[in-house]
């Protein structure tokens, strides 16, 4: 299913890759990592918003993802786009962390669920539809949520499949099932 093995292996590599800790090279590594993360941090925030319900857990998850990304960073050698690589590590972190604290997260407060649109004003029905949809997506299980997230991020099925470590066909089938699921949630 998910390539957790890769994920774990990446984490193991940190020790071998970061021996020379004070070298200018590692300094450069830190700088390039932080710069790129700062630039792409919206991705992480969107994941945090999807997987948590209050600002405290949002920040916790953000920090956890940052640390996991940093640990995996020495293995990232530009073979993919930074953002693509980020999707994978960040989602894996969100899912594993979510699994650990499932019970505490299940209680949803409404505030955290709302989807904030700051662009043009929309008529009430569209707005309402959006809120309902977002709430429905938040209610999905962690793995389905990851798929929907990538879909909403406008990744194509090939990318989705690669990020989640499943086949492209599997990704399409899963997505169709999720759409079905969402339909029944919205129109019971």
């Amino acid at each position, binding site marked *: 299913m998910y390539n957790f093995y890769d994920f774990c292996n990446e984490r193991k590599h940190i020790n071998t890759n970061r021996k020379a800790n*004070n070298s200018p090279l590692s300094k450069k590594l830190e700088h390039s990592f932080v710069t790129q993360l700062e630039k792409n941090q919206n991705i992480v925030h*969107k994941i945090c918003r999807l997987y948590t319900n209050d600002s405290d857990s949002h920040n916790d998850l953000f920090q956890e993802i*940052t640390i996991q990304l940093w640990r995996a960073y020495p293995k990232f050698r530009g073979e993919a786009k930074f953002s693509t690589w980020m999707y994978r590590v960040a989602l894996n972190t969100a899912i594993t962390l979510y699994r650990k604290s499932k019970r505490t997260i299940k209680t949803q407060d409404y505030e955290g669920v709302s989807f904030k649109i*700051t662009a043009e004003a929309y008529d009430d029905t569209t707005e309402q539809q959006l809120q309902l949809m977002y709430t429905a997506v938040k209610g999905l299980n962690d793995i389905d949520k990851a798929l929907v997230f990538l879909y*909403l991020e*406008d990744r194509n099925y090939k990318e989705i499949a690669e990020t989640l470590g499943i086949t492209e066909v599997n990704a399409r089938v899963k997505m169709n099932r999720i759409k079905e699921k969402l339909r029944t949630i919205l129109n019971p």
Partner: protein
Amino acid sequence: MDELEILKKQWQSQEQGLPHVSYKEIYKMLLKKSSSIVKWIFFISIAELGFWTLLSVFVPESSTKFSDDIGLHNVMVAVNVLNYTVFATFIILFYRNYRKISITDSIKELMQNILRTRKTVKYFVIYNVSASLLLIIGINFYYYANQDIVFKFMTEDYGISNISQERFMRMFFVIQILFGIVMIGFVLLFYRVVYGILLRRLHKNYNELKKIEA
């Protein structure tokens, strides 16, 4: 699935409402590893206490009977009480260090906490090693001063016979010394490996912090 398409269309527009974390804040997050290291120090110290307690349960009855017989019962109880009290104090200190490190925000404070944690661990190790050393030396002095009783109860409790007191005592002390050395060596090795690794990591974090503070 129209609603999902609507959401997808609006998906990127939520970005303006997202929080922004600055370069420096992200950098600081990389150093937060310290709190997990200190957490491990806390957990390991508890595990260690559990280990010693468990070990004392498995001490053979003949051995406790022997120390009772030669009049060390009260001393042993006192040593145990003292040891557990000191251990508990250290565990509380470790916990406080952990709490403090996990809630600090400023780099400076974090650095101070790291230094404090290192110091606490150092004292903990010094206490443990010197306490075991003192205990071993003290008991053996007592044995030396009361050779007659030791010989009498040793031969009775363990059913040893056909050996002269002089020869027995010589063997007894050689074994005691060897056992003491192995024991201290084991304790030292344990601390060197377990806490040594954690402290080195803490130190590395400390150095990185120093770089951004400068």
